[in-house]
């Protein structure tokens, strides 16, 4: 399926990815090419076929509800772009 500029802008917004205006045409062409490849699937009749999500079809393993992680806030925040008093800093979201 061929996408247009508006489609690509919508998809980029869903994916929270900024695209420069001058790159939209090339991105549209490449994404359309990929979707054309993918669309070969549509010719196959898969009625009655059960979707396969996990190759070994096992169920999610459960464990006892116990604390397994220790607090490593300092180690994790040491690699954060901006923190203050143990909090992650982002641009103001509440006026």
């Amino acid at each position: 399926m061929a996408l247009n500029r508006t489609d690509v802008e919508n998809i980029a917004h869903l994916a929270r990815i900024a695209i420069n205006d001058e790159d939209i045409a090339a991105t549209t062409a490449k994404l359309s090419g990929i979707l054309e490849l993918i669309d070969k699937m549509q010719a196959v009749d898969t009625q009655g076929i059960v979707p396969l999500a996990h190759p070994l079809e096992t169920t999610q393993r459960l464990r006892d509800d116990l604390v397994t992680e220790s607090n490593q806030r300092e180690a994790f925040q040491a690699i954060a772009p901006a923190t203050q008093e143990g909090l992650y800093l982002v641009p103001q979201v509440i006026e």
Partner: protein
Amino acid sequence: MHDKTLAALSQALQSKTISSVELTQHYLQRIEQFDQTLNSYITVTADLALEQAKAADARIAAGSATPLTGIPLAHKDLFCTQGVRTSCGSKMLDNFIAPYESTVTARFIEAGAVTLGKTNLDEFAMGSSTESSFYGPTRNPWDTERVPGGSSGGSAAAVAARLCAGATGTDTGGSIRQPAGFTALTGLKPTYGRVSRWGMIAYASSLDQGGPMARTAEDCAIMMQVMAGFDAKDSTSVDEPVSNYTAELNAPLKGLRIGLPKEYFASGLDAATADAIHAAVKQFQTLGAEIKEISLPNAELAIPAYYVIAPAEASSNLSRFDGVRFGYRCENPSDLTDLYKRSRGEGFGDEVKRRIMVGAYALSAGYYDAYYLQAQKIRRLIKNDFLAAYEQVDVILCPTSPTPPFKIGEKIDDPVSLYLTDIYTITANLAGVPGIALPAGFAQGLPLGMQLLGPYFSEARLLNIAHQYQQVTDWHHRAPAGY
């Protein structure tokens, strides 16, 4: 020293013919000498390696060594290594010092192996040529104008150029087997769930699987013994007993039934690769195997299905890179949405952005049934093809790629042409079955690869078959000129 296989180096270390410090220094010197050209490493951890080597020599002297104690290895730069940059080949993680150790690398450290460094890869493992790395392309030591394959191309080039004794890779759509084929190495993609994914930066979680890349099947068996096994920290890790991979290498192949999928030898396969595999078929017959033509009728649907499932999972997995908690953040964001969008727009490369967008589209309201659900149904058909084939044969033999290694830049502007190079490898990931790639010959000095695919948890048998082939051939002993 670097001429020796990992197995031979292990013996030399145990018998104290060489020390791990000497061996580590030798590889570090070779990296210095050759890697300016090859660009197989993103990060070289020389100080850490020498420290580990000293500890390994002490452990050998104390008599508590394992077969990997003192062996210098390299790890694909998507295994988190505590205190060492783990970049995933991306600007997004250029400043990311992993705060924890992946299960795979932790197991190697526990076994006493030495970490020489972190190897180059396609950004977030999305690619088949190692050209999409933020750190520039890796070159193939067999011909430096050509790609080493991908996404584990840095690991492949490093082992092939003898810049380490073995390396880890990961395989989501062929990323261990295709580069092994392009560099005349042996590489094993285990059954989904056999090797822990904990601490491996996720691309497509239902397909990703780590495995060894080395010169020989025996070397892979030694590495696999350490990598394989249950890990409670990985929710899809499989709790099955681990075989003794090295002990089973010498089993005879008499009566082995090998299937040749007719779809994989149809149009599009390079003639030299087809000839090499037919020659290998004769070798296997001499070793006592029986050959049978089989069919994997839905094979051609694997690429379309993969390019829905993998991007869909990627779009979900890569949502964590938001410029807030770690990794790249854009300058002067005007608001939170701008922070997200520009951090991701500037931090990810083009191919990663394409795949995230394809995934976001495939999962978006109104398209889910037509794309994601349809792809999962096709995934079932592909798995059923393998189950039917393994009723008739023990393993499947086929090429790893339709052509020998292509030139750097040749396919970079046409993503679809690059996707099609994975035609022979992707089916195994969708079905979750294991596969081993090994060298089958050369054409004009370029390596030709083949792979053996087996039923679930047949890693020991695959290593055994590859090892027996390598007892009667010498492709795996050839080194690229000048290395």
